[in-house]
């Protein structure tokens, strides 16, 4: 496997903001992708990162980043999984919670809330992951949601990033991703 970080950062640099990119990755490349996006790209460019976590609770991601001594000062989470799994859902003002990953509209609203709260910040939105959302939602509903989310990020000049796990990809999900992504990148 090649080094993932340069594949991600080079592609994002090349495409610039307001272009929706789907990064398709293998499970083994998950944490490398995460650190590349947050540390090597967002922190390096002083971007706020709005991280929509559906796959792993935000507290787990936060702990992982902190153990790697990656600054989380500009990371904000829309956590869609901790409420449903009865994890701790309080005490961190960098995280807002959505009660269930089926409440897709609230993901858009929480992102909007974070943008208002951090007005003027340049930002990236990472959806982690589309496969996890697909496990909770019909693909047609997900398609509608992704269109709204991507349009919303693009219109504000943010970097819209979708993560998908290659091993979990169903054909109808891939088809939907092709419709909502301006670029499909497979990380090798």
């Amino acid at each position, binding site marked *: 496997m090649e080094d993932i970080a340069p594949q991600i950062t080079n592609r994002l640099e090349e495409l610039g903001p307001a272009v929706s990119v789907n990064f398709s990755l293998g499970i083994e490349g998950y944490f490398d992708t995460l650190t590349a996006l947050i540390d090597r790209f967002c922190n390096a460019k002083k971007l706020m990162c709005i991280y929509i976590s559906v796959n792993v609770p935000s507290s787990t991601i936060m702990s992982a980043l902190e153990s790697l001594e990656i600054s989380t000062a500009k990371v904000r989470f829309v956590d869609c999984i901790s409420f449903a799994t009865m994890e701790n859902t309080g005490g961190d003002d960098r995280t807002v919670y959505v009660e269930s990953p089926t409440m897709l509209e609230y993901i858009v609203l929480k992102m909007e809330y974070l943008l208002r709260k951090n007005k003027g910040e340049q930002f990236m939105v990472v959806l982690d992951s589309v496969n996890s959302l697909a496990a909770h939602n019909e693909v047609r509903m997900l398609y509608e949601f992704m269109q*709204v989310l991507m349009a919303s990020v693009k219109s504000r000049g943010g970097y819209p990033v979708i993560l998908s796990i290659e091993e979990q990809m169903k054909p109808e999900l891939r088809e939907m991703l092709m419709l909502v992504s301006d670029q499909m990148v497979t990380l090798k």
Partner: protein
Amino acid sequence: MAASPGTRFNTGIDCIDRIVGGGFPVGGMVSLTGPCGAGKTLLAIEFLIRGGLAGQKGMYISTMHGVDKLMTFLPQLDYSDPKLFEKGTITLKHIDEMGSGERDDGKITHAESAAIIDDIISAVNKEGIKRLVLDSTNPLMAEMDSWVASSFLLTLSKELFKSKCTTILVTEGDVMNGHEQTVADGIMLLGNEVRRGDNFRVLEVVKMSGVAHSRAKYVVDMTSEGMLTTPMLRGL
């Protein structure tokens, strides 16, 4: 965020202005209806605060809770400025301060309803109030005979229009054929919608005089940064 000239009254609540096609009718009366816990009072308060931030005076008249209790129970609103309340840009009153407070066998008579209107209009004109909230109409309507209630709202609507004071009438419940909706220039519903067991807070604009407004349902989030909306997904 300044109020728009002409016939539309920019509320300053971005999502509402987008949905209703630019704002409420100037001097119009808008009915905000919905069950308890739907966010009606918060929306009405935001209407006053956004106006206050744009330099417009507002008045909130409570028919139920005392104003002290209301202020205690308000959540943190980061978009607000406490000075708006301290300096009197937004005033909070209780309906008992209007009219004589007299009741005939527990009923508000026609004469008393006229006295309430006189006091409201006098305060509006004296203070230069441009935004008014009456929250909620239910106790008042319950204390009036049907014809008195209808006459009260019609007269109030006419007088407020003359004063160019744009008003939100908060009404609790899901009845759509009350006196408030009959008289109102605009009707907004805040309610709950269940989808696959998930409960969504939703907003719908049923009527807004003089504009081609959106008829879609919007999912609502009442946040410390103000009200946020996004179209409800259909998944068709």
